[in-house]
């Protein structure tokens, strides 16, 4: 269970003169939820884009189950990963159901219609998305519903890995809190490898098994919330944790 699903080996990522990631090594454990956290521009979303092949590293390699990610295997690998972004990324010309089942219907080994329907029912139940919302278009859904549909789409092919880039960042606090609870429960139930990007320390501590704190294109410290709290690698780690004060402290 403790084997590594994804490994970043000596990755450097440059955009022209700007270095988004300095020589970075990272292991993402299978079946666990790893949270990437840090201030804006620290390189956390870049790591997610590298894993799913939207970016190609300037040097170094991303490995998926020990195999380097390349142009040859990226399509197959993407189908084993689900990707959810802050705005949901739902295609506006498709209904919620069409967004979710797009890939299942496209693939050559397409499932029969009744199995696709069964999968939709199962996903609706898992994400607590109302059945009657399936015929709606993105513009007719609330922000929280869009994220539920986006999560359903990411889970539709039953992937090994879920990549979530600030999935709750655009939601109001009430919806956000309840979705955090649901996500934690869903991740626990499915036992998938999850990589979640957030800038909210409370969310990271609540959902994450392992937290990777980043700053300026470098990983500062990786560990559990307790590790970070009790054995901070430097002052920045302490400052970052205490900067996120909760109501209880007020």
């Amino acid at each position, binding site marked *: 269970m403790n084997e590594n699903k994804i490994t970043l080996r000596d990755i450097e990522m440059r955009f022209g003169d700007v270095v988004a990631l300095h020589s970075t090594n990272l292991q993402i454990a299978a079946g666990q939820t790893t949270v990437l956290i840090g201030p804006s521009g620290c390189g956390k979303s870049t790591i997610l884009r590298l894993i799913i*092949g939207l970016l190609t590293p300037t040097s170094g390699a991303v490995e998926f189950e020990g195999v380097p990610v390349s142009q040859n295997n990226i399509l197959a690998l993407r189908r084993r990963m689900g*990707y959810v972004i802050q705005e949901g*990324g739902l295609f506006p010309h498709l209904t919620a159901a069409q967004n979710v089942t797009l*890939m299942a219907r*496209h693939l050559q080994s397409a499932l029969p219609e009744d199995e696709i329907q069964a999968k939709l029912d199962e996903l609706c139940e898992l994400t607590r998305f109302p059945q009657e919302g399936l015929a709606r278009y993105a513009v007719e859904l609330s922000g929280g519903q869009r994220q539920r549909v986006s999560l359903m789409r990411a889970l539709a092919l039953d992937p090994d890995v879920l990549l979530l880039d600030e999935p709750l960042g655009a939601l109001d606090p009430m919806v956000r809190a309840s979705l955090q609870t649901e996500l934690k429960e869903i991740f626990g139930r499915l036992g998938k490898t999850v990589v979640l990007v957030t800038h909210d320390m409370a969310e990271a501590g609540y959902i994450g098994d392992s937290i990777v704190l980043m700053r300026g294109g470098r990983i500062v410290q990786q560990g559990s919330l307790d590790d970070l709290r009790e054995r901070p690698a430097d002052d920045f780690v302490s400052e970052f944790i205490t900067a996120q004060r909760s109501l209880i402290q007020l």
Partner: protein
Amino acid sequence: MKKQEEVNSIRQNISRCTFYALSVLLLIYTLPSADAQKIGVGSKRFTESFVLGEIAKRLLEDAGYHVEFKQGMGGTIIVWEALKNGDIAMYPDYTGTIQETILKSATPLTSEQMQSALAEHGIGMTGELGFNNTYAFAMRRAHSDSLNIHKISDLQDHPNLKVGVSHEFLKRKDGWEPLSRRYGLQITPRGMEHALAYVALNNGEIDLMDAYSTDAKLAEYDLAVLEDDLHFFPKYNSVFLYRLDTDLAAIDAIRTVEGAIDEGLMTRLNAEAERTNDFTAAASLYFSEVEHRAVEVAPESFVSKLARWTARHLMLVGISMVIAIVVSIPLGIRASRPGLLSQIIIGVPGVMQTVPSLALLALLVPVPMLGISPTTAIVALFLYSLLPIVRNTATGLQNIPIPLRESAAALGLESTAQLTKLYLPMASRTILAGIKTSVIINVGTATLAALIGAGGLGEPIISGLALNNAEVILQGAIPAALLAILVQVCFDALDRLIIPRGLRLEEASQQAGTGE
């Protein structure tokens, strides 16, 4: 789900109907005339040439030919090129024009010299038809009397006269420049469309114009013709030019006109054409006067003519648009990526758009395989239709937000499937708007097809210009405008079927959002 199926079946029906409509269009376009042998007759763009062309058409039809009459093709060079290319087999011209414009001879030629010079081009010339339609200068009679101008040399003392002459006369070897040198004139003329010059002269906007000595308008407007006292203008005896490879029987049929039309008759035929707005009526007058033959050909009804023009117009627009769409969308897809090639793909149709349509037609006519034909018109319309579709396809794809592109890529779809399932539907509104713009421009531009004998609703417009008759112009202009409106309405309806509902809802909510 049921609703989706209905929409799908409607879409299928539409694409099936489109397919049938196109097949019919192509069939009309390519259908050979079944039995009779086909022969092309051309004419230039003024009343007399139209009338002589109609007479030739009747003579050939009576001789058993299927005649394709390409009327009002343009000036001398266009019609001459069409004759040499074999687009037409014959057309009426004048000895003066043949000598000056076609053979470019500095010295006067005898009839035999012209015959042999033309034969080198594979062209023959009939005998003279019997009238001399030379150039003349016309003024309002009262004006010429008050200034005491009766001869061309009298113009020397009036350098401030406003002169409007046809573009052809402006450039001819026996035209304005040598004439003004010979007569020592200091006047700077303006070039203008011949039929419009009569109106300008009558309204006093110009004082002097070039005319043809058999113009019906000379009598109609009671104009004074100035005497060519230095005998500058050559003889403009009317003849038919024909290809030497034309059937002998066809040439014999045309030859029956030799010596049959004097100046008086030609002026009457021209007047008849302008009075009735119908060149076939003028041709009928010729047959009744010359051959004392009963005229029983019923003139084509307006509805039937309108149907014929509209069908041809739709064919030109339809074929050129289908090709333009098929070519432009892939080009637009390629142009949506950054790089030099994309700039070229957008730039070339852009330059095309700046070429005036008339000039584009004139440039295409000499191209091998094109010539004076509907194909040339379709090529020109196709070239004009490219830019809006290419540009809108590229812009529509470029405007898809980055998060949506990344989501599309992250799904693990092949790039072709990303394009067809996601990108093109998301850009469909912009692409369709480009197509709509193209069709509406195309419907308007297609009226110019008549200039090269390709027919359509431009036919009455050009005849009307030749006749200087607003009513005839409107017979083409109004249906063309209505057609453009109809196209607009059809496309608005098509929007609902082609643009996915989700995109329309999104647009509506954005509009509501900005309205708040």
